[in-house]
């Protein structure tokens, strides 16, 4: 057989960067992949087992390759309102918001999660492959404002604990507390209980600051912990020790199938500079109602052509997955016209049938429509289904 490569997105960098958790992963027997110039775990033993662990109990991920860019200053809120698509001035301290960095032409330069970590302070989390471009764009765009931009990616490691058991495991892990004097483990457990989705709290581990956010990229309840690199291994080990068999270390392979089932876009697949937010179903992320100009506004207001492709979910028959770049055709006749292209796809571990996201022409995007995907020479029937493919129970 051919040497199988990994299919994660990300540019192959000339420098091979390693996570502060690298030794932990090697000791755990992880297989690695190059991801945006980083050597990151692709799986530890079985990507299917890792996927199922997150859906049923919990999984722990090293996401230290992600970029963290801090914007700070009296005009930080206004600066981000201008620089990004969302109204970041409207979020409260401790709140997070999914946002986009748009080009002047309205295309997506990166998708981001922005945390307001203080009245005059935000942390912008960027995809690893876009860290530099996001930092550069933020510096340029915020220059007229009283705000400064610091790329703190090298000083922040990121651990995600995802899955229905995440809350309990994090609550039970010794060493955590709320930042500030006079707190104890009980306060911490209560604070986590009350922490809403897309909210973060300033916590500490062994007296060192940790930002704990109820966010994730798996479609499950879970937390993301922004920690000092030198603390990452101790926190990782503590969570695994507390969780025992409930917490399975997970690589990027399972992260990709989890986010796909949850209908979440991946930069370089569903998002890119040639994609307008509305095409990817992210029109709501662009705050056209906010006052003042923002980068990309004019282009977004002009709108996209009526025939611009739109992102849809596809459910396929059989077991063979439609994968990125496979062509999509209308109807199930052999001479159906080409209507689009797959951006991501896999045999869904949870649902048991192949799922895919694809950009197709608007006339082929209606729910329930029958399409076909050319899977390496065979036309496989697919139907247009709503996103997400998977939604967790209440």
């Amino acid at each position, binding site marked *: *057989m*051919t*040497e*199988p490569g990994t299919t994660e997105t990300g540019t192959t960098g000339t420098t091979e960067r390693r996570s502060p958790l690298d030794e932990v992963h090697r000791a755990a027997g992880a297989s690695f992949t190059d991801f945006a110039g980083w050597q990151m775990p692709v799986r530890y033993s079985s*990507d*299917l*087992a890792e996927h199922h662990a997150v859906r049923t109990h919990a999984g722990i991920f090293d996401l230290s390759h992600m970029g963290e860019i801090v914007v700070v200053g009296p005009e930080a809120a206004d600066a981000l309102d201008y620089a990004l698509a969302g109204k970041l001035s409207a979020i409260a301290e401790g709140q997070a918001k999914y946002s986009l960095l748009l080009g002047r032409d309205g295309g997506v330069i990166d998708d981001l999660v922005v945390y307001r970590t203080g009245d005059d302070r935000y942390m912008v989390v960027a995809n690893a492959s876009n860290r530099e471009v996001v930092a550069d764009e933020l510096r340029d765009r915020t220059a007229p404002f009283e705000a400064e931009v610091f790329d703190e990616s090298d000083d922040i490691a990121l651990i995600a604990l995802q899955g229905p058991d995440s809350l309990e495991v994090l609550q039970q892990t010794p060493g955590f507390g709320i930042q500030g004097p006079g707190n104890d483990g009980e306060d911490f457990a209560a604070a986590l209980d009350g922490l809403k989705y897309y909210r973060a709290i300033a916590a500490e581990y062994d007296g060192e600051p940790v930002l704990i956010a109820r966010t994730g990229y798996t479609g499950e309840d879970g937390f993301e912990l922004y920690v000092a690199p030198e603390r990452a291994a101790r926190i990782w080990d503590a969570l695994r020790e507390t969780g025992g068999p409930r917490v399975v270390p997970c690589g990027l*392979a399972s992260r990709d199938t989890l986010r796909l089932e949850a209908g979440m876009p991946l930069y370089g697949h569903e998002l890119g500079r040639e994609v307008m937010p509305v095409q990817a179903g992210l029109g709501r992320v662009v705050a056209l109602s906010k006052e003042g100009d923002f980068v990309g506004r004019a282009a977004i207001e002009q709108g996209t052509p009526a025939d611009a492709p739109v992102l849809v979910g596809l459910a396929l028959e059989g077991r063979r997955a439609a994968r990125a770049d496979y062509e999509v055709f209308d109807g199930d006749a052999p001479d159906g016209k080409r209507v689009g292209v797959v951006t991501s796809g*896999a*045999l869904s571990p949870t649902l048991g049938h192949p799922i895919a996201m694809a950009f197709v022409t608007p006339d082929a995007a209606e729910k329930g429509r029958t399409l076909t995907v050319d899977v390496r020479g065979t036309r496989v029937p697919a139907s247009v289904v709503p996103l997400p493919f998977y939604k967790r129970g209440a």
Partner: protein
Amino acid sequence: MTDQTELQYTEEHEWVQVDGDTVTIGITDYAAEKLGDVVYVDLPAAGTAITSGNVVGEIESTKSVGELFAPVDGEVVESNQAVIDAPELVNSDPFGEGWLIKVTTSTLPKLLSHAEYRALVGE
């Protein structure tokens, strides 16, 4: 348990076990590990004539697709139904229950020894 040192190998990460004029073909543990969890295999049916170097099947994981190249000229006498039904056998027992096809052949090309193959994959 198959003795891996008795098998022959290809640079495409297949193993070949010779028994008279019948050869059994599978993929190596190295290939299975690189693929990740195998979730689908597509194998040629019994009676199919195969030509060395041609793609005759697919081994698909959650992350990628590997192509199965015919290591010999011949005719397929059996494809492993157990693997078609339970593709995870390719991961759990690549040299045993995870075999893929049996082929009759009259000519056996020069293949790699166990030591040569392990050197190839750097182990």
